[in-house]
């Protein structure tokens, strides 16, 4: 108990002293998860919107698949990305294994189904009467699609935030494809795992506090966005 208290005190000290190792890890984490969520949004929002707006055979199956992939086990994603990027893999020539880029790829794959599925759900749940109103105003198909997406904007923003939450909290996949190399591919989650296994709780706790704080920020943002979107339905 006492050890935990002193570790906690030390953790705050590290945070307050702007320890360069600690902040290096934090910035890399933000960078990797940030870029991953940008990529996941760039792919997932159009995919989810397309699924919600365009009717085609097999659409239901794709939606089910996407919903299933929302719970993709990170280690499986890590394994697959590893196999693809490893030297003998199909993309091995890129030499990306054990790099931040590989981590971004893994996190993008994890966040994509969440962004796409929640975007789809958000657009699909736009009130049919609003869709009727859009059509009655004389909107063309593409104008109507645009207006429906705008109507679902808060749900889409919530989808992207949820995707970020998934990417930032993930450890297994980035550990496998990033290699947890100090000063290069070590992010908050992988550092916590490592430091804990070493019994070095100060840095782990300091990073844990930051992760918790970020998670809080993400959740507050999510709630604020959902509140705006739910305005007197």
């Amino acid at each position, binding site marked *: 108990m006492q050890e935990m208290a002193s570790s906690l005190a030390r953790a705050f000290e590290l945070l307050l002293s702007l320890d360069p190792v600690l902040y290096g890890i934090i910035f890399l984490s933000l960078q990797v998860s940030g870029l991953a969520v940008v990529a996941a949004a760039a792919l997932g929002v159009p995919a989810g919107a397309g699924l919600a707006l365009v009717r085609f055979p097999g659409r239901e199956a794709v939606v089910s698949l996407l919903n299933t992939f929302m719970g993709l086990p990170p280690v499986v994603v890590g394994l697959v990305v590893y196999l693809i990027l490893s030297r003998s893999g199909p993309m091995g020539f890129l030499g990306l294994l054990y790099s931040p880029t590989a981590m971004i790829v893994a996190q993008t794959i994890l966040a994509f189904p969440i962004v796409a599925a929640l975007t789809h759900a958000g657009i699909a749940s736009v*009130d049919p*009467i*609003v869709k*009727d*109103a*859009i*059509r*009655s*105003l*004389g*909107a*063309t198909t593409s*104008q109507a699609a645009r*207006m429906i997406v*705008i*109507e679902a904007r*808060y749900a889409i923003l919530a989808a992207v935030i949820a995707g970020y939450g998934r990417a930032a909290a993930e450890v297994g996949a980035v550990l496998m494809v990033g290699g947890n190399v100090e000063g290069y591919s070590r992010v908050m989650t992988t550092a916590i795992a490592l430091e804990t296994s070493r019994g070095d709780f100060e840095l782990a706790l300091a990073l844990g506090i930051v992760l918790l704080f970020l998670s809080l920020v993400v959740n507050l943002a999510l709630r604020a966005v959902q509140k705006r*979107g739910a*305005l*007197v*339905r």
Partner: protein
Amino acid sequence: MTLSLSAAGLTKIYDGRAVLDGLDFAFQRGKVHAVIGPNGSGKSTLLRLLSLLDPPTRGTVLFHEGEESVEAGISVRRRMAFVFQRPSLFNTTALRNVEAGLAVRGRPKRERTDLARAALGRVEMEKMTDRNGRTLSGGESQRVALARALVVEPEILFLDEPTANLDPHSVRIIGKAIGKLRDGGRTTILLVTHNIFLAERLANRVVFLFEGRIVEEGEASAVIERPQDERTFRFLTGELAG
């Protein structure tokens, strides 16, 4: 020349039941038609088919400009407008809601804003332009919806129970706006309503719909005061169930 509207053999079948059953009717240009009838008589379905929101199972909706027939498509749609019974505003300000139809038609921003403000004035909502449509009361929301329809200067206006469950103040304002439109004589209006008083006050013509068919139609005061069909009489006196 403004558009005229008629139905030819208009039929809509839902779950094996004919909600509209081979309806033939020509609406009079520039007149207010109150469509009345018991619940389930096909009033709302009729409006949805005529406004091209839903396709008929059989039959057609015909548009004419003078003698010329006009193809039912996006350009016809842009000459019509619809006010729904349920709140249908977009999750944005009242002003932007009213601008939407103009934006769809590619009108420039400045013009859009001016026209939308003026339209909101017609329904006495000029002081609430910046309020989000979703935070308005039922009556306020419906007045904005009416402004959103009026601003595009529709030649045909569909109103599906526009005053149902609204506060008396909003009912009065909406009634007044529709009355002005009627007096202008340039807009063909189809008003579905359960409110016989509103129908009598606003409509030139009354169409009584029963089980998907037009049972009686004529001058508003004539149909309401001296119905010829026994079913119309029973409906107006409240003896017809539904």
